[in-house]
């Protein structure tokens, strides 16, 4: 009984902090209809500010709320004015991606500046506690609750009693009406975002400076990971392969850690259809255009790619090509659902991971060769997709996005905890692939990258072909109609759920295929690396950067992302800057050289922000429109 009471009370006290974060989130959503996925990062910034105030000036963490809150208010207001304001009329999905981008930038900047080490803040009362009727409550937690309660009360007073508070609430109820009543809706947006960020800051400042408080920051599981890597068997392909395998899961973890707190959401959310800006995006060749020309256009690069391994035998370039093909396959897979049907799934890691785990487990436990196992895995992913689809497709817009994230997280946690099957967080290391025979002829024993190259190429071409076929079929028309206007589509006789599910199934199956392949290529899987939110985000990024809803978009996006991340990894950018005359020995030079290689997630974040703000239709939309305009001149 006492334990129960203890848990309940502690829960309530800790809940106070979450409530503060939640209130900030609802305030932002209420006033601007923007779901702020960077709220967790703002909390983190608040924590850092508090930490450094304590470290540098000895200011008590609870006292520092007075500084942290205004500081975060300013940061929030700035973010709103410079970035969020520009996308208020955009699709809710784009708004979400923008805030995800902001989150990535904030978290990775923090990681570059402060590294991913834990910072521990302990005060004189850190481990003290009070005893009330046999129940012990930690003092810091009590203080913390008192402060959050006070802030909440103050906010309530502000919103209910003051003129500005009225204006904010009016804006939340009806933007247009508020504007007509003379409320500066823009300013209210800035104010709301500032307040929301300020609350996050306060939450960060007061968050449990209890038992040696830990800043919840990136890569908290880094140690664990390096252990799992030590157990890795050395790969045949030597250096490049290993380097890749090490970085990938590591990067996965780092991003994911930062993304997790974002999923907590509170408050009553309401859907609102925002007006869409029609943008020239039809890149489909017109009917009259000869099919021969189109075929040639695609055949030439395909033949070139088929010949690549003949004159390119060193593993590294082939490795990059393989990564590229995987990225293309993933992007094109997502595009069927996200691009054509407009259902922005940020949970495709679920299918990617199911493909990877399915085929891996079959090989490991049942000794099923991957080229059979893959199809079983794809079937499993398809089945899961159908279940997921029938549940989540009741939701629209941002709610679907959130639901898709939740599904991937559930499956990730399942993989993490179902240890008998998945080996938990330690992951599974692929055993040697059995040699592939055709009749009696040995086709490959997987000792070089060339077979992987051709398989990846085949997979990418397959996914591209799927997109082509979808786009030109009834299914493609129906999916696009659903993307443009669900009610209109419904009224034209389109059964929404059925078609959305068809889109999801195709998309999930292709994603699972890509997941299986890339898992076998890397040779090691663990829940975070394949089910992590960052996998899902990366897939979306490929399409967003290239151009959603087009067949070429994901290809371009994949090229941009893969080349960029490889360039960063190989430190090409820093070296380029040195060539341009940046002194290598200067402080900046040293810093860049040291850190740029780890900054690819930061660069992704910046890329997302830039793309969403300046070319919401991706490279294809951006340059396509420009080219057409020039042509028509």
């Amino acid at each position: 009984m006492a334990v129960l009471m203890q848990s309940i009370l502690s829960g309530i006290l800790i809940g106070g902090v979450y409530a503060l974060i939640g209130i900030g989130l609802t305030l932002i959503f209420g006033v601007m209809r923007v779901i702020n996925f960077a709220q967790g990062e703002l909390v983190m910034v608040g924590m850092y500010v508090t930490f450094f105030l304590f470290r540098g000036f000895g200011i008590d963490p609870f006292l520092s709320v007075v500084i942290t809150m205004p500081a975060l208010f300013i940061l929030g207001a700035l973010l709103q004015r410079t970035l969020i304001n520009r996308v208020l009329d955009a699709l809710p999905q784009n708004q979400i991606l923008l805030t995800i981008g902001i989150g990535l930038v904030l978290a990775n900047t923090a990681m570059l500046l402060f590294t991913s080490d834990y910072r521990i803040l302990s005060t004189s009362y850190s481990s003290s506690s009070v005893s009330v009727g046999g129940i012990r409550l930690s003092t810091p937690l009590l203080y913390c609750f008192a402060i959050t309660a006070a802030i909440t009360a103050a906010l309530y007073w502000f919103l209910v009693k003051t003129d500005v508070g009225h204006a904010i609430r009016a804006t939340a109820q009806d933007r247009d009406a508020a504007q007509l009543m003379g409320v500066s809706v823009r300013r209210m947006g800035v104010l709301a975002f500032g307040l929301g960020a300020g609350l996050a800051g306060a939450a960060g400042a007061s968050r449990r400076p209890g038992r040696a408080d830990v800043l919840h920051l990136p890569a908290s599981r880094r140690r664990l990971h390096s252990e799992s890597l030590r157990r890795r068997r050395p790969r045949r392909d030597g250096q490049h392969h290993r380097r890749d395998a090490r970085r990938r899961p590591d990067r996965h973890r780092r991003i994911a850690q930062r993304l997790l707190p974002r999923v907590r959401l509170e408050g009553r959310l309401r859907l609102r259809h925002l007006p869409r800006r029609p943008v020239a995006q039809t890149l489909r060749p017109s009917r009259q255009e000869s099919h021969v020309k189109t075929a040639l256009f695609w055949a030439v690069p395909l033949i070139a790619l088929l010949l690549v391994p003949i004159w390119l035998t060193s593993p590294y370039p082939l490795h990059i090509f393989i990564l590229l093909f995987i990225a293309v396959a993933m992007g094109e897979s997502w595009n069927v659902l996200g691009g054509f049907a407009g259902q922005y799934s940020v949970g495709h890691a679920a299918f990617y991971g199911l493909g990877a785990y399915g085929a891996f487990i079959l090989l490991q436990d049942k000794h099923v060769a991957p080229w059979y196992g893959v199809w079983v895995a794809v079937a499993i992913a398809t089945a899961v997709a159908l279940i997921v689809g029938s549940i989540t497709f009741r939701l629209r817009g941002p709610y679907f996005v959130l639901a898709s994230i939740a599904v991937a997280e559930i499956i990730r946690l399942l993989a993490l905890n179902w240890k008998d099957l998945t080996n938990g967080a330690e992951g599974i290391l692929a055993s040697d692939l059995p040699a592939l025979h055709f009749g009696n002829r040995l086709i490959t024993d997987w000792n070089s990258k060339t077979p992987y190259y051709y398989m990846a190429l085949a997979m990418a071409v397959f996914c591209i072909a799927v997109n082509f076929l979808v786009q030109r079929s009834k299914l493609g028309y129906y999916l696009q109609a659903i993307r443009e206007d669900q009610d209109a589509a419904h009224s034209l006789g389109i059964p929404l759920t059925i078609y959305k599910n068809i889109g999801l199934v195709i998309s999930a199956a292709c994603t699972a295929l890509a997941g299986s392949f890339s898992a076998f290529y890397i040779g090691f899987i663990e829940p975070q690396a394949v089910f992590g939110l960052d996998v899902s985000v990366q897939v979306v990024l490929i399409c967003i950067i290239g151009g959603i809803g087009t067949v070429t978009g994901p290809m371009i996006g994949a090229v941009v992302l893969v080349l960029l991340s490889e360039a960063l990894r190989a430190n090409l950018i820093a070296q380029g800057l040195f060539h341009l005359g940046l002194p290598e020995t200067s402080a900046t030079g040293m810093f860049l050289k040291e850190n740029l290689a780890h900054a690819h997630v930061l660069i992704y974040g910046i890329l997302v922000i830039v793309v969403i703000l300046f070319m919401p239709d991706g490279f294809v939309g951006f340059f396509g429109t420009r080219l057409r305009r020039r042509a028509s001149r």
Partner: protein
Amino acid sequence: MTAPLLEVRNVSRFFGGVKANLDVTFDVETGMVLGLIGPNGAGKTTLFNCITGFFPPSRGEILFEGKRIDGLSPDKVCRLGMARTWQKVRPLAKLTVLDNAVVGALLRTKSVKDAREIAHAQLKVVGLATKDSTLAGTLPIGERKKLEVARVLATQPKMILLDEVMGGLNARESEDLIQLILDIKTSGLTQVVIEHDMKAIVRTCDRIVVLNSGEKLAEGTPQQIVNDPRVMTAYLGDSGGAKA
């Protein structure tokens, strides 16, 4: 006399305590144009939503070709042959005008090629054939309304429901649409139109149903309705003399 194409029987629709429709009953005969009029908030669009399956009626029955359709989903209703346009136009903005109509035409065919032909024919009917490769989102309002009609026609329906296709249009554009409704009528297609412009209603409709505060106030030929004093009061009383 054959059974009516559409029978609306004692249909009521409540939103919480609000009675959007109460006990509305009327029939639509094959080939006729029925006008549905009433002051703002009379429940016309709600009735359309009930008939086309967007929300099921709280009470009452709706029969199409003698079969119950209340409670069916919108896509099923459309497949049975009843298609509607939207008062607030809903173009598929990033698709071309032709592709908008193709989406409608695909209801009855699997072949995109066939659908293109059907779609093209319907665009000709409404006079948008020359604009077929324009993006629907860039059309001016008058043409968007026509596109709505073309898209609905492309589903090859037995009956269409037009929700204020003339709303917000200038005199010339309205004239175009009146002509369009009359043309469609000549082709034998049954229509239910919601409209505010009495002149347009009188010119196009065979029969008129007047709704007021969710209930059917009157029904009759255009002549009867125009001379009905209750209709006058309803309009003048509720909307202060302003024609909405």
